[in-house]
């Protein structure tokens, strides 16, 4: 399964004047829904008696994330260490992950999350599947593997679609596929004993074109809400309600 180590979106600091974003003091975390994916992958791997490898591509600080992923149930972790300064877009990320998946032998199933909490691009999984030449099943909320056949329930807007395909396959999952339990003491301590491996991108032997971003970021601006923020905190509930209704009436938004 693939998980991403990202900055906590709630801790980005935005300069209200320039809208410049400072992520340096934001804590890092495993992308929220990737935690559900780890759990789904753990269950799936258990059901077919496979080893579960956690795969991440990111800077050196992703090391902490590796420990967390191991505590959450990954048997072994591979951290492809991103080149300092090089920017990865979906194109680069998918090529790197595909190269690393090929290096692991006998992979039956790769799970990604539908979207990561920083990019939410819905891109990496299907791109990766295509590069591997495997069938792709996206947006899955139920997953079972029997023999060499995968059966999945996809969420398509207001419809649920059940599909089947043979392994190996790439599946992207939605968080409802499994809850993400908080790891306990033994799991956390056990994580330190599980194997993990760091692979420099260069060791993957990818051609330059595969590791050169297709897109260039020319601007990155934080969002600054321009709301009035009238706080109604004190006094009796009725007073707050009266103040609110008076305000809304003045704003002309009541019918």
């Amino acid at each position, binding site marked *: 399964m693939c998980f991403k180590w990202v900055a906590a*979106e*709630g801790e*980005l600091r935005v300069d209200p004047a320039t809208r410049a*974003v400072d992520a340096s003091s934001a804590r890092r975390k495993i992308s929220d829904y990737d935690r559900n994916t780890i759990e789904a992958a753990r269950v799936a791997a258990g059901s077919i008696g496979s080893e579960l490898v956690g795969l991440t591509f990111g800077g050196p600080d992703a090391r902490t994330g590796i420990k967390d992923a191991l505590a959450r149930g990954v048997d072994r972790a591979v951290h492809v260490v991103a080149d300092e300064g090089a920017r990865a*877009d979906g*194109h680069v990320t998918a090529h790197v992950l595909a190269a690393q998946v090929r290096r692991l032998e006998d992979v039956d199933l790769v799970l990604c999350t539908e*979207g990561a909490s920083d990019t*939410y*691009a*819905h*891109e*990496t999984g*299907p*791109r*990766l599947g*295509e590069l591997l030449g495997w*069938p*792709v099943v996206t947006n899955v909320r139920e997953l079972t593997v029997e023999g060499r056949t995968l059966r999945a329930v*996809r969420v*398509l*807007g*207001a*419809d*649920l*679609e*059940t599909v*089947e*395909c*043979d392994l190996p396959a790439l599946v992207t999952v*939605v*968080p409802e596929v499994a809850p993400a339990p908080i790891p306990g003491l033994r799991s956390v301590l056990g994580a330190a004993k599980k194997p993990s491996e760091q692979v420099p991108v260069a060791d993957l032997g990818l051609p330059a*074109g595969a590791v050169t971003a*297709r*897109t*260039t*970021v*020319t*601007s*990155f601006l*934080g*969002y600054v*809400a321009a*709301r009035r*923020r*009238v*706080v*109604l*905190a004190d006094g009796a*509930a*009725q007073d*707050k*309600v*009266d103040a609110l*209704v008076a*305000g809304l*009436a003045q*704003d002309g*938004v*009541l*019918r």
Partner: protein
Amino acid sequence: MTGIYVFSEDPRLAAELATTAAALADEVHVVCLGADASRTLTATGATSVVVLEAAGAPRPEAYVAALAGLMRDRGADLLLVGATVTGWEVGARVAALLDSALVSEASVITALPDGAWQAERVMYAGGAVQTETWSGPGVVTVAPGRAVAAAVPGSASPVEVVAVDVDTRVRVVSRTARVRSGVDLASAARVVCVGMGLAEPGDLALAGDLADALDAEVACTRPVAEDRGLLPTERYIGISGAHVHPDLYVGLGVSGQVQHTVGFRDAKVVVGINTNPAAPLFAVCDYAVVGDAHEIVPLLAAAVRARH
């Protein structure tokens, strides 16, 4: 420049994409699956409509290689894909086959003078806006509702049918509809949004009553729909749900994570009711009411009714 290709499995969305594309290039080709879809799309004023045809009734995702092949053969610059669950997959896989750029859910697309492209998209679920440029072929997904569906009276684009091979490795076993309420939150003038702070079974009546007093639609946050199953999924607002732009949004027991709040950014007036004075929702509110929704909501409904 050989024009923009647009694709969506949903003909209405394809027609919207045709509008977006027409503003960017002289030549717009609409790609669709099956003759039915082509009938509505010939009236969009597109340069041509390309129908991909295969035996049986394959799922749209089965056409990925065919679509990529078409792009490559015709030397297409840009493929716009409707950002649905299917469109996300199709767009990303086509980009992989073309080894090209992809911009997900672009809000603004610009053709730069030197033949390069530029697009804006949100990052961190709405915490930031990123502008990206690229040259060479690219795929851009565009969310529904970004443009008015193109309809050029009297126009009849030439239709070209291309027989293609499809990928049948993924087999559809069944398809069922989840509960639908047929609500169109996007056009609601007032929205009462239920969060997990007001998501016990009995609480829904409270929210319903306030919505009734305000003549508002009831909406919710993602966990209320997806985890609790209290309301149909098309009622949840946010980056992965509905985008709304009402005159009034009232959040009841909503914490205000950006993934949710990005969905009502265009609301004229935002009200939050939450017990926690530090709830992130209050940072993006016009009125922050600190209090228990169980207590405030009935009073608010009564006060609104008293004005009628």
